[in-house]
């Protein structure tokens, strides 16, 4: 066979080996399929309340988690299924929580917005915008107090930036040198309010400069870029206990929640379609295939495994009983 252009292929080009590439693809796809199933379950009435989908933003959670150790912590707001799954929670128990069943992560008492999993150091799902930023600094305070070298990643939306707690947390984390990485998922909207209608400074990463901490912006649709930037922050934080602020430029395809199905009042269809062109899963898959690190057969195997696991999750959640009535009154106060 005649050689034409020397093709640039292989792990060196992609920057990750085959095993990691498959894992990144797998984890992003798992979140995507999980969210699609959750939406379906919502329309069937199996999931109630508010349901906020992470579709379109998968590269942030998966990229960031891929540079963490199991003893590192993560904490998030209410659009947190992806963060919790990426950290290693069992999709079956996450789905059961959405269904309000006894085998849910939080025994069915938390729901979609309050996923917690101590076994993987996931510190929750918090639904008051801005409130978990101090909690993240507090967990970092405890880590430092105990002399450990773990870190915590705190995911939050652009909507938390105008809140006082964002500024209080950045100031205190910087002042006390706490090992926390604040990772803003700037998807350009807080419900229907675009960042330019909410922020005098829309370059969110720049707030980090005000507080004298390393800060940068990253393409949140590029899982490898997220890995690189968050990886740098984690290494620095582990070493010198300095916090970081990272702004990930990302986009949510769906409405704010299932009650905002189209998400069409405050943005155009064209905008949404345009953003879908840089889909994090498609882009990474194509790149990994082109580099020859992942094969078509790998992709098919990943898709099959993800589909199986999501089907299992739904079956598990369906089969899990409702929490018993007595549980209304348990877990209010801890007994010694």
């Amino acid at each position: 066979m005649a050689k034409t252009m020397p093709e640039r292929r292989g792990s060196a080009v992609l920057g990750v080996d085959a095993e990691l590439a498959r894992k990144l693809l797998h984890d992003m796809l798992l979140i995507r399929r999980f969210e699609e199933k959750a939406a379906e379950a919502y329309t069937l009435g199996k999931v109630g309340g508010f349901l906020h989908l992470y579709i379109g933003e998968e590269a942030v959670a998966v990229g960031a988690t891929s540079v963490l150790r199991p003893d590192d912590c993560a904490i998030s707001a209410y659009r947190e299924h992806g963060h919790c799954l990426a950290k290693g929670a069992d999709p079956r128990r996450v789905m059961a929580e959405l269904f309000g069943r006894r085998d849910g992560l939080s025994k069915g008492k938390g729901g979609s917005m309050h996923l917690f999993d101590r076994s993987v150091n996931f510190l929750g799902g918090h639904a008051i915008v801005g409130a978990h930023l101090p909690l993240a600094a507090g967990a970092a305070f405890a880590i430092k107090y105990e002399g450990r070298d773990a870190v915590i990643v705190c995911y939050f939306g652009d909507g938390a930036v105008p809140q006082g707690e964002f500024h209080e947390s950045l100031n205190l984390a910087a002042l006390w040198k706490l090992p926390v990485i604040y990772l803003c998922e700037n998807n350009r909207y807080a419900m229907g309010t675009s960042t330019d209608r909410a922020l005098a400074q829309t370059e969110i990463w720049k707030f980090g400069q005000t507080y004298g901490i390393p800060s940068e912006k990253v393409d949140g649709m590029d899982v490898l870029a997220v890995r690189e930037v968050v990886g740098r922050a984690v290494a620095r934080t582990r070493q010198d206990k300095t916090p970081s602020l990272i702004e990930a430029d990302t986009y949510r395809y769906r409405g704010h929640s299932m009650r905002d199905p189209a998400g069409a009042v405050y943005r155009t269809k064209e905008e949404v379609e345009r953003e879908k062109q840089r889909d994090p899963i498609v882009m990474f898959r194509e790149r990994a295939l082109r580099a020859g690190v992942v094969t078509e057969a790998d992709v098919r195997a990943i898709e099959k495994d993800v589909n199986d696991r999501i089907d299992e999750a739904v079956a598990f959640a369906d089969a899990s009983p409702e929490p018993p009535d007595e549980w209304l009154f348990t877990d209010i106060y801890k007994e010694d």
Partner: protein
Amino acid sequence: MAVMTYREALNLALREEMRRDPRVFVMGEEVGLYEGAYKVTQGLLKEFGPRRVVDTPIAESGFTGIGIGAAMLGLRPVVEMMTFNFALLALDQIVNSAAKMYYMSGGQFNVPIVIRGPGGPAAQLAAQHSQSMETYFYHVPGLKVVRPTTPMDAKGLLKSAIRDPNPVIFIEAETLYPVKGEVPEDPDFVIPLGRAVVRREGTDVTVIAYMGMMYRAIEVADELAKEGISVELVDPRTLRPMDVETIIGSVRKTHRVVVVEAGAGFAGMGSEISAFVTEHAFDDLDAPVERVTGANAPMPYARNLEKLKTPTKDKIAAAIRRVCNANGS
């Protein structure tokens, strides 16, 4: 036993618990270098150093949230509110984070935090610095709320609060800090949360009060004893969980109840006590439950108006006489 001030009793409780448990640390505005706005944390920075005695800037929501986050990972923060009026800035963290965490995580993350500081009516501090803040907290499932009246209670209850695995709101009083009393020096001495105390036995009427109002009620009881009215004084000490059993036991004995509280009466502690006394002991009552409460007005500055805001001894005595005469005896 040693005689010491309420302030010293709190200080001793903090020292003992910090010596006992390395996870306990103190955090708040002016707690370290300045030694506490009211000197409750005097000497702690010297003994324990800046790792465990943490001065914060003015950011109540931020540092309370940090305390809660640290507690989620197993530390035992004691967060000082310079005065409890400022806890309103941290109300979201206290109500939505601290109180709910254990429940909404399905029992995975408890929050062993104490949030303490002075509250209640002070001397001419006016509307924003002189409020009975307990009402904002005892409504919330997941919180415990303590109001310690004496130096002994201050020590014993603070130690229990620090050892408790749940969030505890511990509201002291500026006016009580210099009050002296007997306090056990034994570091193992604690007073369990959720237990009321009968401060004085009596037979004619149960008066329920705490903090400054209890001291007033004691004086009133002394005076009424001369008229032949025997007053039983009950101090709940912990407002949530409330020791309903002790209160009802006293009502069954005296058949008459007066609740005295400094805060505005509407939907206050007296409302709650009068409701559960009616539910549990209606047939034992010889008179309707009386409430003597703070006026339903903000706290004024002027000395004369300020006096009108909180229950006076005369008002307490009048209520007691009313219930005692209610059935003509």
